[in-house]
C-alpha cells in the first residue's frame, strides 16, 4: 500500500506504543480503553451470574454455601451496574461520538477524560480487591444496618471503589455537557443535533446531579462502620430508612443513566436503518430531558413497604406513572419512523427490533410495580429481578451492542461477518426471553429475590431460566469472538458502510486523530436522508 506522504494517519496508528495509549488524550483511544475495560468487567459479572444460575438449577442450596451465594449476587450486581452498565454507552460510544457528532476535535477537557478512565480503573481495582479479600455480601444496594454493622465483609473497600468510580462518571458527564454547550460546529443548532447528543446531554445531567449523593451516602456508611457515627443504625440512634432514601435518590436516576444513552443509540439506529428523519424529533429530544428530570422524583417507589409514609408513597407512585409517558412517547415515535422508511435488513436492524421488543416488556412491567397495591405483593420478588433485567439488559445492553455493531466499522475500520451479527442478535434475544420471562411468573408466585434455596414448586421455571441463560451466554461470547477476530483482519470498512447521515460518516473509518481535516459547518437537520438522497453514492 502506498500512502501519500502527507496523508494524516488514523487515530489507531498515530503514534504507536503502549505509552501512547496509556497516556493518550484522544477521546477515541480513551473510548477503546473503556471498551476493553468494561468488556472485562462484563465477563466477570457474567461469570458471577453463571454461578447464580447454576445454583438455582436445584431448590436446595447445594452448589455454593449460602455466604458464597450471597457474595455472588452482590458482586454480580455491583460489577454489572457500576463497572459495566453505567460506563458502557457513555464512556465508549459517547466518548467516541460526542466530539465527532459535535464537529469537534476532541472533548472540552481531554486530560480530564483520561483521568476519568484512571479513576474508573482505580475504583474497579479496589472493588475487585474486596472480592479477593473475601467478598462482599450486602447486595448491590448496601442496605443499612446490615451493611454498616451486621455484615462482616469488606464493605468499606467495595464502597470506596464505587465511590471513586462515581467520580469518573461525574467527570465524563461534566466533559460532555461542556463539549455540547461550547464546541458544536457552526450551524449545529440544538435542534439539528443528532438525538444521541440529546440523550448524552440528559444522561450527563443525571450523572452530575445524582452521583454526588450516592458518593456522600457511601461515605456516611463508611463513617458509621469505621467510626461508629449513628446515622443509619438504630442502635446508635440512626435511621435505616434514611439510607434507602439517599441510596435510591441516586440509584433510581442511575437507572436512567443506564437506559437514556441506549435510547439515544436506538434513535440513531432507527433513523439510519430506515434512512429517514426521526418521526417527532423534538418530542424524542425533549422526552430525554423529561425522563432525566422527572426521574429524580420517583425514588420512593422502591420503598412502598419500607414504612415510609403512605402519603409520600402516593406522590412517588403518581410521578412514577407519569414518567412512563415520555418512554412510551419515544417507543411510539421509533415505530412511526419505520413507517414508509427504506428499511435495511442488515445486522443493526436486528438489534433495533430486539431492543424495542425487550424494552417494551421492561417498561410495561414497571407499571405493575408503580401501582402501589400491586407492588406490595411484587416488591423484592423475582418479578422485580425480571423487570430490571428487561430494562437494563434487554434495553441497555441490547442498545449498547446495537451501537457497537453499528459504529464498529467507524471505530476500528473493520467489518464483522454480517451473518454472525444477525445470528448473535437472535441468540441474545431468544436467550434473554428464556432467561427472564419465567422470572415474572415465579415472581408473581412469590419467590423472593436473593434466595439461595427455594421451595420445590419453583424449580421448573428456574431450570428454564438457567437454560435460557446458557443460550444468552453463547450469544454474548459469539459477539466478543467475531469482533475480536475482526481486529486481526485488514481494515476493509468504507467511510460510510450503512449509507447513513451524520458527521461521523463523513470522515474516514477509522478517523484521523483530530477527526476533521477541515472544520465542518452544518447546514442541514439531522437525518436529512431525503435531502441527501442524490449525494450518497459512495458505498
Amino acid at each position, binding site marked *: 500500500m502506498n500512502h501519500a506522504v502527507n496523508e494524516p494517519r488514523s487515530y489507531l496508528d498515530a503514534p504507536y506504543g503502549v505509552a501512547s495509549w496509556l497516556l493518550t488524550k484522544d477521546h477515541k483511544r480513551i473510548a477503546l480503553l473503556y471498551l476493553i475495560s468494561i468488556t472485562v468487567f462484563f465477563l466477570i459479572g457474567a461469570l458471577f451470574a453463571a454461578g447464580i444460575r447454576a445454583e438455582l438449577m436445584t431448590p436446595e442450596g447445594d452448589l455454593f454455601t*449460602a455466604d458464597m451465594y450471597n457474595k455472588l449476587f452482590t458482586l454480580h450486581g455491583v460489577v454489572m451496574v457500576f463497572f459495566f452498565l453505567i460506563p458502557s454507552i457513555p464512556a465508549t460510544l459517547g466518548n467516541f461520538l460526542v466530539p465527532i457528532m459535535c464537529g469537534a476535535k476532541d472533548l472540552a477537557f481531554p486530560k480530564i477524560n483520561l483521568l476519568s478512565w484512571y479513576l474508573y480503573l482505580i475504583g474497579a481495582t479496589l472493588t475487585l480487591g474486596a472480592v479477593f479479600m473475601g467478598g462482599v*455480601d*450486602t447486595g448491590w444496594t448496601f*442496605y443499612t*444496618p*446490615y451493611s454498616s454493622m*451486621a455484615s462482616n465483609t469488606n464493605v468499606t473497600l467495595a464502597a470506596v471503589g464505587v465511590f471513586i468510580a462515581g467520580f469518573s462518571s461525574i467527570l465524563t458527564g461534566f466533559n460532555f455537557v461542556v463539549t455540547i454547550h461550547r464546541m458544536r460546529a457552526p450551524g449545529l443548532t440544538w435542534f439539528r443535533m443528532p438525538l444521541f447528543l440529546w440523550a448524552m446531554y440528559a444522561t450527563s445531567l443525571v450523572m452530575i446531579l445524582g452521583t454526588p449523593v450516592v458518593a456522600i451516602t457511601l461515605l456516611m456508611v463508611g463513617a458509621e462502620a469505621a467510626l461508629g457515627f449513628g446515622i443509619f443504625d*438504630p*442502635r446508635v440512634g440512626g435511621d435505616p430508612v434514611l439510607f434507602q432514601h439517599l441510596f435510591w435518590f441516586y440509584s433510581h436516576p442511575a437507572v436512567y443513566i443506564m437506559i437514556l444513552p441506549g435510547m439515544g443509540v436506538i434513535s440513531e439506529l432507527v433513523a439510519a436503518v*430506515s*434512512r*429517514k*428523519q426521526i*418521526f*417527532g*424529533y423534538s*418530542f424524542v429530544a425533549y422526552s430525554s430531558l423529561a425522563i432525566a428530570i422527572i426521574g429524580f422524583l420517583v425514588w420512593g417507589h422502591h420503598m412502598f*413497604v419500607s*414504612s415510609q409514609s403512605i402519603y409520600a408513597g*402516593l406522590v412517588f*407512585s*403518581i410521578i412514577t*406513572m407519569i414518567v*412512563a*409517558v415520555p418512554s*412510551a*412517547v419515544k*417507543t411510539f*415515535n421509533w*415505530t412511526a419512523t*419505520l413507517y414508509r*422508511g427504506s*428499511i*435495511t*435488513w442488515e445486522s443493526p*436492524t436486528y438489534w433495533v427490533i430486539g431492543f*424495542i421488543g425487550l424494552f*417494551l416488556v421492561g417498561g*410495561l*412491567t414497571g*407499571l*405493575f410495580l408503580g*401501582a*402501589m*397495591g*400491586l407492588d*406490595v*405483593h411484587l*416488591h*423484592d420478588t423475582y418479578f422485580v429481578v425480571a423487570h430490571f433485567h428487561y430494562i437494563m439488559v434487554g434495553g441497555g445492553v441490547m442498545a449498547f451492542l446495537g451501537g457497537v455493531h453499528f459504529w464498529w466499522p467507524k471505530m476500528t475500520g473493520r467489518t464483522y461477518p454480517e451473518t454472525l451479527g444477525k445470528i448473535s442478535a437472535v441468540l441474545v434475544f431468544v436467550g434473554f426471553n428464556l432467561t427472564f420471562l419465567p422470572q415474572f411468573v415465579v415472581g*408473581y*408466585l*412469590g419467590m*423472593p*429475590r436473593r434466595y439461595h434455596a*427455594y421451595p420445590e*414448586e419453583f424449580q*421448573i421455571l428456574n431450570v428454564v431460566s438457567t437454560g435460557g441463560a446458557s443460550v444468552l451466554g453463547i450469544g454474548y461470547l459469539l459477539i466478543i469472538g467475531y469482533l475480536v477476530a475482526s481486529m486481526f483482519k485488514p481494515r476493509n470498512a468504507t467511510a460510510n458502510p450503512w449509507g447513513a447521515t451524520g458527521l461521523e460518516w463523513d470522515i474516514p473509518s477509522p478517523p484521523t486523530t483530530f477527526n476533521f481535516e477541515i472544520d465542518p459547518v452544518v447546514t442541514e437537520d439531522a437525518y436529512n436522508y*431525503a435531502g441527501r438522497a442524490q449525494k*450518497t453514492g459512495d458505498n
Partner: protein
Amino acid sequence: MQSTFPLFPQAASSVASEVDLLYFFILAVSAFFAILVSALVVFFAVKYRRRHPDEVGHDIHGSIALELLWCVIPFVLAMVMFFWGASLYFTLARPPADAMDIFVVGKQWMWKVQHPSGVREINELHVPIGRPVRITLGSEDVLHDYYIPAFRVKMDAVPGKLTTMWFTATKVGTYHIFCAEYCGTQHSGMIGQVIAMEPQDYEAWIGGGRTTGTAVENGERLFTTMACITCHKTDTSGRGPILSDVFGSTVDLQDGRQVVADENYLRESIMNPQAKVVREFQPIMPTFQGTLSEENLLQLIAYIKTLKAPQ
C-alpha cells in the same frame, strides 16, 4: 395444597383476588400495547424493506396530533392504574378496628410470633379464617420483611421501629412465609408457614398452647420488674408522667412540639427516651435499649395500651 408446578399463586386472603384483578388489568393493557407495537415494528420492517441500495425513506417529520394522542392515552391509562393501585394500597395499609393483634419479631434468621393469649410460636403462624389479623412487626437486628404470597401482603420489619400489616385469611390451608428483605447468610432460610384454620380449630389450638401469661400480663409483670413503676405511678407522686390513657392521646413535648402517642411513640419513649421529652418533666428516664428485647417491648406496649384512668 400447592401443585408441584404452579403458574399462579393461591389466593387465600380477602385482598388477594383484588390484587389479582389489578394485575390482570395491567397485564391486559400491557399485552395490548406490547403486541400492537411489536406487530407494527415487524410489519413496517418487512413491508418497507429496502428494495435497492440507494433508496431512502419518505420524509415525514411528525404529527402533533399523533404525538398528543400517544401522550394522552398512556397518561390516562397510567392514572387509572395509579388510582386503582393507591386505593388498594390504602386498604392494605389500614387495618380494621376489630382486628386481632399478633406480634411478630424478626431476627437473624427466624420469626418469633406471640399471640394475644401469650401463646408463642417460631416460624409458624396460626390464624383463624374470616377474622382480620393485624401483625405488629419488629426487628431485633437488621431489616427483614414478612411476606405471605398467598395473602399478597408483605411488610418490612425495621429495627428501631414498629410496622404493621394486616390480612383476613379466607381459605383453610398452609401457606408460605418468606423473608423478602435480604438479611444475611440464612436469608433464604428465614421462612415459615401460615396455618389458616377454622375459628373453632384456632381456639382449640390456642387453648392447647402453653403460655406464660397473656401479652398484657407479661407486660404488666415487666412494668414492675423493670422498675417502670417506680417512676410511673397512678398518681402524680411519680417522677415520670402517668401513663393511663396516654395511648392515642396528644402529648406536649418540651421543645413545643406535639405528637400523637402511637405504638412507635411508645416504643421510642422506652428505647430512646431523650428523643422526645414530655413537657414539664426532666429527661431522667433511663434508656432500655439493650435490656429489653423486642418481644418484651411489644408486651410492655400492649400493657400500656390497656392502662385507663379511673373514671
